[in-house]
């Protein structure tokens, strides 16, 4: 759409010569091409959009992680089997009972086949004098159950640690020991692995046995001691027995635990070469995946990077669509109010004045708290409450355009009002609208993230940059990456959009620059 009429503003004489005869749009594009900062900002935003669009591909093919959209604390249970999950909740989260849902198979797509009997015992995790705690997780598929022998004693220290029985908490005397992991429960069983440990009073040691999915082959043992605060050791242990009793059920089921229960976490890599230290938060099951998590995992073992990308999908699409809605409404009402004036103008002004006398965040909070909307309705709410600023701008601009000669002449030759509005006024609003759009998207990202941060916008398990920070305060000591990256994404995106808005404004009208 070429801008045929209107006032082209030029920086100086040089520019006047260079761009003589060009339309406003051509001129703006030419100026933009020389504005490196804005170009970089546009590039960054485009990259972010692309990354979030291709989040599923990046997640599966490049990162090689699977990010379940539901809470992914998973366990596999054979029918009739009993699994015991030991959770060490963070001391801030005293578990108040767990909600357990059993689904057909692993992942979010599983059909729910009913709730299982779940029993939560609160147990004080206190260590005896001279002992320390050790977690043993046996995560190999098809591998036999094993026992742990301490310093080649005849009797097993811990017998029959079954496959996927998750974390077994052992109390081990302080000092240097050799732990032998043997098949079966007797001292003559095949040695699966040996582990030299140096148990300190303040360490909680974790050993994880990895096996090959076919059940045979090497079994690697990785162990890592990590120090814990003494207060963490003194927390309640929620001991959950999940009993899968249905005989007609599929072979394995997936247990999803819908509670904020936390496990002390470590990352492991399968080949044993590197222990990824960055991911402070993985669950025991994530240790089975044995993946490298570029930005670590969150408290539920989900890959942080892919979650950031999915969150970007939601945050960006909400901001873009809400901005478009509010621009359409704002421009329409602004043109009408500015063009006709009179009663319409007064009503619009009163409406804007009324709603502007409340902080926008408060209105949004009230609406969102009462309506409890999904993402689609949230877009509508944000869009319907976001048009005041652009409306005021467009109204002012229309007022000034209306007084110009070409409008007067168009009226004089009897052009219909609709034609004047669409052909003569609207194209001249283009620069105002485009600039406002860029700034609007930035502001909407901020507003949406604030709402989601406060727990009112996008609700988990869906991720948005805002709600990924909701529990951030609990990760200050354990997983700083969970606090830093979502906020960094918001800041970079909004900053780039502001830069783009400024750059566009300068491109359309350099006289506005101060």
């Amino acid at each position, binding site marked *: 759409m070429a801008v045929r009429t209107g006032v082209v503003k030029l920086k100086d004489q040089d520019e006047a010569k260079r761009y003589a005869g060009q339309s406003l749009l051509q001129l703006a594009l030419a100026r933009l091409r020389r504005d490196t900062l804005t170009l970089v900002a546009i590039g960054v935003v485009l990259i972010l959009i692309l990354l979030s669009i291709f989040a599923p591909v990046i997640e599966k093919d490049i990162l090689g992680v699977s990010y379940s959209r539901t809470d992914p604390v998973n366990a596999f249970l054979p029918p009739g089997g009993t699994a015991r999950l030991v959770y060490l909740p963070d001391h801030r989260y005293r578990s108040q009972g767990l909600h357990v849902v059993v689904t057909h198979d692993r992942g979010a797509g599983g059909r729910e086949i009913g709730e299982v009997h779940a029993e939560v015992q609160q147990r004080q995790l206190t260590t005896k004098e001279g002992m320390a705690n050790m977690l043993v997780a046996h995560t190999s598929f098809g591998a036999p159950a094993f026992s742990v022998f301490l310093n080649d004693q005849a009797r097993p220290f811990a017998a029959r640690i079954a496959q996927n029985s998750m974390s077994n908490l052992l109390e081990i005397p302080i000092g240097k020991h050799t732990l032998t992991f043997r098949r079966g429960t007797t001292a003559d069983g095949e040695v699966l692995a040996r582990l030299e440990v140096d148990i300190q009073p303040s360490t909680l040691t974790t050993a994880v046995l990895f096996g090959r999915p076919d059940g045979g082959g090497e079994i690697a043992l990785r162990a890592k001691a990590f120090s814990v605060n003494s207060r963490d050791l003194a927390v309640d242990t929620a001991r959950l027995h999940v009993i899968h009793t249905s005989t007609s059920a599929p072979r394995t089921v997936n247990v999803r635990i819908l509670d904020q229960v936390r496990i002390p976490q470590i990352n492991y890599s399968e080949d044993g070469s590197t222990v990824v230290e960055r991911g402070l938060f993985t669950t025991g099951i994530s240790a089975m995946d044995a993946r490298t998590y570029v930005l670590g995992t969150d408290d539920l073992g989900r890959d942080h990077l892919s979650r950031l990308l999915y969150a970007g999908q939601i945050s960006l699409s909400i901001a873009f669509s809400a901005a478009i809605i509010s621009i359409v409404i704002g421009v329409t009402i602004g043109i009408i109010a500015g063009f006709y004036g009179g009663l319409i103008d007064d009503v619009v002004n009163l409406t804007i004045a*009324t709603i502007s*006398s409340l902080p926008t965040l408060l209105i949004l909070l009230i609406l969102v*708290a009462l309506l409890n909307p999904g993402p689609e309705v949230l877009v509508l709410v944000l869009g319907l409450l976001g048009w005041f600023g652009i409306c005021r701008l467009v109204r002012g601009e229309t007022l000034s355009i209306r007084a110009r000669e070409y409008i007067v002449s168009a009226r004089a030759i009897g052009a219909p009002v609709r034609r004047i509005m669409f052909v003569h006024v609207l194209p001249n609003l283009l620069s105002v609208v485009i600039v406002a759009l860029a700034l609007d998207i930035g502001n909407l990202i901020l507003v949406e993230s604030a709402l989601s941060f406060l727990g009112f916008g996008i609700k988990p398990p869906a991720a948005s940059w805002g709600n990924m920070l909701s529990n951030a305060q609990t990760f200050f000591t354990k997983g700083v990456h969970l606090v830093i990256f979502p906020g960094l994404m*918001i800041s970079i995106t909004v900053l780039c959009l502001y830069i783009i808005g400024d750059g566009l404004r300068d491109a359309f009208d350099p006289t506005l620059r101060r």
Partner: protein
Amino acid sequence: MAKYIARRIVQSIPTLFLITVLAFIIVSLAPGGPTASLLLDPNLTPQDRVRIAEQLGVNDPWPIQYLRWLIGDDWEWRIRDNSGEPKPGNRLGILRLDFGYSFVANRRVLDLFGERLGATLELGISALLFALALGVPIGILSAVWRGSLFDNSMRVLAVIINAVPNFWLGLMLILLFGVIIKGPDGKGLLPMGSRCPTTLEACPPLHERLNHLILPMIVLGGGGLAGYSRYLRASMLDVIGQDYIRTARAKGLKDRTVWFAHGARNALIPLATFLGPAIAGVWGGAFITEQIFSWPGIGRLTLQSLTALDYPMIMAVTVFSAIATIVGFIISDILYALIDPRIRFN
């Protein structure tokens, strides 16, 4: 002057009236209506439910309910007591400052507000002062040293502060000063939240707990700081370009006298118009700041009421916010007119 003030107050009445209508409609639109949570109590018998619904008048058309909320129902002999005798209602209506009882706390809304007002005022005023105390000099100096490194870095900083979500700014500050940087006692340098040190006694006076105030003040004042500095820079540039400044320079006055005695005094005048938006901004930011820092103010109370769908509280918060903002705008208009004789009261 008195006439002008009176007119501004009268002008704001329709706005306030519309706000009350808006608050009422929004709350009535809520799924199940405002009393759904009250009537859901499983301990109630069906008769109780009918009685409560009748007492609250939830089955009446909403204009009547709105009127009751506005002016009370003590003039209406509507409710029947146990013997079937009609008796007057006990609500006075918000026009007589009766905002009803909180569903959750079961206490008068105004009492709950009164308890929290001090904390919010303390935080809001200090954030405003912080923003002014830093923003004004930064803005003036940026204009004086226009184009310098200081000017450019301050402008970049202002854009960055606007782009960083303030809840994340708060989180990062807590992380930095509450966790990473240790004080002499081995704990974080500054407390991670709340208004007072945790004691069972009452809060000590403000000067003994300034360390609790620093971080929330910075977070809440950050946006204002960026706004003020940018605004004052523009205003100062306007002033510097005017003829009387050139005259002052031509007279041979020192640069410093010209800038600060002649320039800054006039550049500060438009600041008066900022009071209204500033109150709205501080109030809007208080929700987030108070939430992050566990600050026991009205913002946090509001969020709790929203989570619990405590309708009387929500409606009262809406009305109070509107009053606070409108009063702020009126005061700033009046201030502006008082300070700047070029403004006429018409």
